[in-house]
Structure formats: C-alpha cells, structure tokens
C-alpha cells in the first residue's frame, strides 16, 4: 500500500500513535443521570479504542435531540446538524470522502418521524456507514411529546390521554426497504451486547442500521424499567453470522437461532412479540453499495482543463 493510499484509508503513515478511551473524548455529557445515552457513548468509545480508529478520520453526524448531542462528547469530527436530516449530511460526507469512517446518531423522532423519508432512502442507497438510532420512545429534548415509537396508550404532553396509535416498529420498517443490508437491535442496558452489535455494524460493509432501545428515566421510565431489570423479558437472536457474546447466555437465557441471511424470517421475527428480541435480524454484504458504484478515480486540474476544452469545442461557433 502506497503512503498516499494508506493515508487515504485512514491508517496513519508514521502513525505509531495508539489511542485509549480518553483519546476519544473526556467531556462529561449533559444527559440526565440514568439516561441510556451514557452507556451507548461508552460502548462507542470502546469500539473506537478496540478498532483504533483515527479520531481525525472519524465523523459522527447527528440531528437534533438529546441523543443528537452525541458528537459533542467525542473527540472526533462531528456534525450536529438539523432535526431529522443527519442521513443526507452523512451521505454527502461519505460520497465525497470515502476515506472517512462515518457514524450517524439519531433519536426516534429524528429518524422515524421528521427524518422518515431520508431513513428509507439511506437504507436503500446502502452507503457504508454505521447508524445508531437511540430509541427512547419519546421526544426527549423538547420534553415529552409522542414519537412514532411511543407505545399506544402511553400519555405524553401532546397526547395526554395516551398515544393514539400502535408504536411504529423501526426494524420491520427498515426490513421492508429494498437493498437493506444490515439491521440489528440492542439495548443500552445490555452493554456487552450493545458493544458487540455496534462492532458488527461497524464492520459490516454497507449501511448498518442499529436500533438501540434506550432508557429515558426523565420521560419514559416505566417503559423500560422492568425490561432492564429482567433478562427473561428478552430473547436473544443468535447465529454465527450474527452477534454472539460469550457468557451472555448465562444471564439472558432465552434465545433463538436466527440466520441473518433469511429476510423472510427476519421480518416475521421483527414483529411484536412477548419478549424483546435483541440481535442481528438481517445482514447481506452482497447488496450493491451506492458509494461503491459511484466511486471515481481522482483527476488533476490539468486533465480537467484539457477535457473541458474539448467539451467547449462542441459549442464552438
């Protein structure tokens, strides 16, 4: 690998640097205590440390919401943009700079409500990026409004008699999109599984969508409290091609073999069930990647000028 290429792919040249957790950020996050976002941040830092990502080659893109504060707490490049629009921004970044590691962090309102159109299309583009959707089933930052994933009947400030509709299932929805390539679900309260899932997503070549069930003690404490306490309310999807966390089966005893290549079963399993299913629902690295398809060799200014002069000839009088 030439020096240029090595630098292009983000492995430093004379890089004898090694990074530990603090190198990826040491600010104290401004989330409520007990907020699930803290755990996700920790796992993400751990992943970066484990993979020794170059901080300067890593970009976190987010929208607006509690969860979207994420990039501020990391020592990487960050783009804290506007509500619902993280995915187009990430698309522009990755399309123009394939050398960067692109992560996207969104809330459930951000991704599934105002950002729904982009979510669907980004899934279809299947550009190589890791997408973490922090689902606390509520609008946190704006203080307690119904989100698409709020369970029916749960009272909020905008639907005080209880949310009107059944919660949208983001896993099923993503699995319905043509060219989907990676869909997984995990929870902030199972840190080992969280890390393993994020790692699998990061290593997946393509658009990897991870829904992270996230506690919001401020506004949706009752929704996750029992869940978080009770391993038996979970059902782990396990498979050699999914995620396996050694030892986790001692605590999370209920599990289900599921081959992530099987999309029909993935869809069926994604539907509401008695227990919350954690694991990789679907993974397919052979789907076409838009960033791949659109990859171009670089051009020098001189080459371009020459060609453009030929092009101008077509218009010459």
């Amino acid at each position, binding site marked *: 690998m030439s020096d240029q290429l090595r630098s292009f792919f983000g492995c430093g040249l004379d890089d004898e640097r090694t990074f530990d957790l603090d190198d990826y950020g040491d600010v104290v996050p401004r989330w409520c205590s007990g907020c699930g976002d803290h755990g996700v941040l920790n796992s993400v830092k751990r992943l970066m440390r484990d993979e020794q990502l170059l901080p300067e080659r890593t970009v976190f893109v987010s929208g607006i919401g509690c969860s979207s504060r994420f990039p501020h707490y990391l020592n990487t490049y960050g*783009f804290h943009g506007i509500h619902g629009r993280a995915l187009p921004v990430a698309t522009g970044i990755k*399309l123009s700079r394939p050398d960067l590691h692109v992560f996207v962090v969104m809330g459930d309102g951000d991704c599934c409500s105002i950002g729904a159109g982009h979510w669907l299309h980004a899934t279809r583009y299947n550009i190589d990026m890791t997408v973490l959707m922090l689902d606390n089933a509520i609008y946190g930052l704006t203080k307690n409004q119904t989100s698409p994933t709020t369970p029916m009947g749960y009272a909020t400030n905008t639907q005080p008699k209880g949310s009107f509709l059944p919660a949208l299932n983001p896993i099923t929805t993503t699995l319905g999109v043509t060219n989907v390539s990676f869909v997984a679900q995990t929870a902030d309260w199972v840190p080992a599984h969280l890390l393993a899932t994020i790692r699998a997503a990061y290593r997946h070549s393509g658009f990897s969508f991870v829904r992270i069930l996230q506690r919001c003690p401020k506004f949706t404490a009752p929704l996750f409290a029992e869940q978080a306490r009770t391993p038996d309310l979970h059902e782990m999807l396990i498979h050699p091609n999914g995620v396996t966390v050694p030892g986790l089966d001692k605590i999370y005893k209920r599990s289900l073999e599921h081959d992530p290549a099987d999309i029909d079963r993935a869809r069926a399993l994604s539907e509401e069930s008695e227990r919350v299913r954690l694991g990789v629902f679907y993974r397919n690295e052979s789907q076409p990647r838009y960033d791949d398809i659109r990859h171009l060799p670089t051009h020098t200014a001189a080459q371009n000028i020459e060609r453009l002069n030929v092009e101008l000839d077509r218009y010459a009088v």
Partner: protein
Amino acid sequence: MSSSSPVSAVGSEPTECRESVPKDVIHTNEHVLEIVSDSGEGAQKCGQIFAAVSAKMSYGVWTVEIIPAEIEPPARTPASASGNLIRFGRDRITNWGDEVKLVVAFNEQVLLSQHRLDALADDCIVLIESKWSTHSDEEICQQWKAAMEEIGESGYRIIPVPMEEECLRRVDDPRRGKNMFALGLLAQIYGLDLEKIREQIRAQFAKKAPEVSKSNCDLLELGVEWAEGNLDFRIEIPRIEVDEPRVVMNGNQAAALGAVASGMEFCAMYPITPATSVSHYLCEMFENYGGKVHQSEDEIAAAGVAIGASYAGKVALTVTSGPGLALKTEFIGLAIMTEIPLVVLDVQRGGPSTGLPTKVEQSDLLAALFGQPGDAPRVVMAPATIEECFHAMITARRIAKMFRCVVIVLSDANLGTGQQQFRRPALDERWHAAPPNHRAVGSDERPYDWDPETGLSQRIVPGQPGGMHTITGLNHDQDSQVDYGPEANQLGCNMRSRKLALLHETMSPPPIHGDDSGRLLVVGWGSTKGAIEEAVDRARADGHPVSSTHITFLSPLQPGLRDIFERFDHVMTVEINYSDDLDAPHITPENRRLGQLAFLLRAQTLVDVDCWTRVPGQPLRPGQIHDAIHTKLSSISEMETTPA
C-alpha cells in the same frame, strides 16, 4: 405588404416549378423569426440548428424556446405549440426583441397560438403547411377557416407551403422530416451556409445510422429548392466577421460548464423545471472530471448532501427553482450558521407556489435574500447574460470558499433556456479545487478562528489531525462549543455579518449604460439586461436623457448606488416580478407593493425608486420597456408642470 385576404398569391400557385423565381431582396440588419410545430414535430431541432449555424456565420443570435406546458398536449391545438424564436442579426443580440417578422408554422393552430400572444409584426411573413386547408376531414378545414378568419384582421402575408407533399418525394413519413424541409426554406430565405447546416445535421445524428443524416440532408435540399422555385423574396442581413473564438449555448449549459470549470466536484439536486437541464448536462459529463451529481430523494436532502460534501472539504453545488428553494430554506440557514461553503443555483420560474413552471420570472429575489428565519447573511448574485451564467459559477465558488459562506446565484428560465454566443472562456487552472487538505492542525488553531476585523476564518475539515471538533447549528463560540450566552451570540452574528461588509469593500459600483447623469435611470438585475439596454438606447435615440445600470450583486448590494441615483432626477427599476400599479383600485403610494429590487434599493439608498414590473411569464421586450420609459418620462413632466 398587406392584403385583404391574408392568403397571398405566391404560395397558392402550383408548386411544380423547380426553377428560381425572381426575388425581392429585403435588406435589414436583423430579423426575428419563429418556427413552430405541434409538440414532437421537431421545430425545436430546426430552430436550434438554425441558431447554431447563424452563430457560426458570425451573426449575433438570441433564441427563446417555445415549450408547451404539457408533456403531450393534443395535436393541432394552440396549447401544442412548440419550437423556437430566433432573433439574429449583424450585431450582438441580447434579447428576443419585439416583433416576429417571419413564421414557419406546421399548422394553423400553432400559428394561432403565436398570433394570440400578440407577438407577430403586422407585416409578418407566414409560411404555413398548406395541407390543412384542403384536408379530407371537414372539421379540420373548418378549423383552418376559423383560424384564418381570426388572423384575417392582421396584415400578415401568408404563404401556404405544401410541406408534407414535398417531403413525400423523399420520405415515407413526412411528419418526421418536415422540420428539415422547413430548415431548407429558411436557409434559402436567409442565405445560410448549407455546408455548415449539413455538418450540424451530421453531428446531431452522429449516433444514428448514416441514412438518417442523409435523408435529413435531402429534405433540407428539398426545402431550399422549393423556396428557390416559389418564393419571391429573400432576406439579406450583413455580417461582420469576428475572429475571436466563440461558443454558443444556453444558460443552463453555461452554468453546468461553469461549475466544472470552477473546480466544483459535487452537485446534489432534485429535478425541477426549468433548472433540471443544468443537472442533465452535468450528469452527462461531470464524472469525466471526477465530479459527482447526486439526485436526492427531495430538495431538502439535496441541500443536506451538498452541505455534507462541502463540510468534508468540497464546495458543493445544489441546483433548483422556486419550490425547491423553498424546501432548502432550513438547510441554507444551517450552512450560514456553520459557515459551510455552498453554492445554490436557482433558475427562477413564475411563482408563487408551482406557478408557471416553464416560464420566466424574477421573483425569488427577496426569498433568496431573506428566506431564512434568524439573521442569516449570505451572498446573492445574478448573471445577466449567458456568458455570465458561466462565469458566475466560478465567482460563486471562489466567494463561497474564501468567505465560508452561502452564495445564491439567481438565473432564470429566460437565461437558462435561451441561447446566445459569447467569447470562448479561457479556462484557468487556478479556478480549480485544491486537493483535500490533510495538514495537522496546531493546538492554537480553532474551528472558528474569526479575525475580529473581518469575520474570516480558516476551514478545518475532517481528516486533519488535531482539528477534531463538532460543528453545530446552535450558537457556538470560536471552538465550536455550544454557547447560549449573550456575548457569544452577539459575536457570532457580528462575525457572520462582517464578512459581507468585507466582500462589499472589494466591489465596484455597477457601470452605467448611457450618460452618467440625466433625467431617468433605469435599474435592472438578471436576464433583463439586454432588453433594458436596447430600450434605453432607443429612448436616447429619441433624445431623452435616460441611462441604465444593472446590478450583479444583490447581497451585499454593490456600492455607489446612492451616488449614482442622485445624479439622476428619477430612478425606476424594470423587473419581471409583481408590483401594484398605482392607478389600480385601492392602491396608494403608501400601500403599494413594490418590485423586489425597488424595495431593496429604497431601503438601502432611501432614494425614491419607482418600479415598472410585469409578470407575463415571458421575457420583457425592449419595446415594452421603451414604452414604460416614455410613460414614466411623460408622467414626470406632467407632475413637474402641474401646480401642486
């Protein structure tokens, strides 16, 4: 020449005769002609070749597309009219002129459509397919008759031409070749260079089988012969050979080529008329230059993708028109707040809302200037010619990059689809993008290291070691840290605004067309430049002390305007957008809604700038503007002589 029956003698004679008939020669310095057919019959192609060839022959040329508003309107209806208006002549041509002097029409309904637009000269020569007058379908004959009656009042000289009949001598389906026959007619009438036409035809059909070119050239010949053998006139326009290299294209092509020449490498868009063809041109060729066009799921995403690309080190482009600009409102605000360079090309159409998608208007100015909630300083500029469409992209990219700002370029449907020739641009490597910057960032450098004097700062982009930071649309300090404090917010606003003042310092006042002082100054912006200057020239020729000036930078507004305005007794803008007429019911000087530039100029200069604006969905004509100037001048005189 006018006759009581609009159908004159010549064409009704039998057409067997292939010999030349004697010709009256009409000498003129320029002519405006139209070729118009049902949508799909190829009048557009005929017009394009005519324009290209006359440009190659060193004529000045300006073309306007005649496009139906529907995809496939019913044939033989006025709504179906499709084709080209071409104004060409000895000198540089800058607009579509006033009156059409010659029309080639493929049926009487499309002729009617042009007639009803009130754009044909009283003595217009009309060459029209004759077959409809004797069509076997009685209804069609009736329609022909009714049409002829409707236009009977006019003094057109109508010359029926058996176009299909003639074409049938060479081809089986005359509907497909008629346009080349018509081109032959025109070539003969105007004495165009046939070899150049054939070249053009061959280039057009290069991808098809050679017979296609061949048969088209044959039909061309047929047209020439027919005109030679039947028409009793030809039109002679002197030429001045130019030897500087020139190109001919429309404004959307120019903008696309300008984007490439500027070194931009990324364009995100969503289709919208009349901007889409910019993207079509780019889609065809951008990859050859390492550039990408990304068609997004919507305009919001297009803005976001472009901003992402810019953030990552490019200066990206997004192309749109009114409704799309509306959707980009929020993202443009983010780019301004985070100081991410972005070029937005808005090819304006008629509004509000979906409005007149294929037609020209200049009414996005205030939205471009003030569309964003909050204080959001940005640069707004408007090319006034096709050539400027090319160069505007280069300037826009440079400003966006140097000032870390958003530049909105306001073109319009007239520039976008009109063709004109201009000096071939000398490309310059310095315009081009530098390779991505990977230098390490010093520990003393900050993401918004605003120079307090100028507001300028250097961009740090992902990949630069040591430069890690998070940009945010929240208010932030020099380190890009969120800061809600009173000083931090005031500082951010100051710095973003200061940059415009700095840019303003680099600008010169707009040049004046005509004398430096006088009774009336006409002020314009964008595509109306040619028509305004032509009107002013005429008014000056009439002996009136009228000048004009044309504004390229709307934000920051070019300097020196107040000084200029004060040298004139009166100032009036001419714009293709809406203003209340003072003599309309309920309208008073106090509640009158003004033309958009007029509004801006008044606020900025406090000069009592009047406006004359119209929203016909068409380019303004020099004659109309000339009239408006006259009206204004007489009302001034009246005011001055009436005791108060």
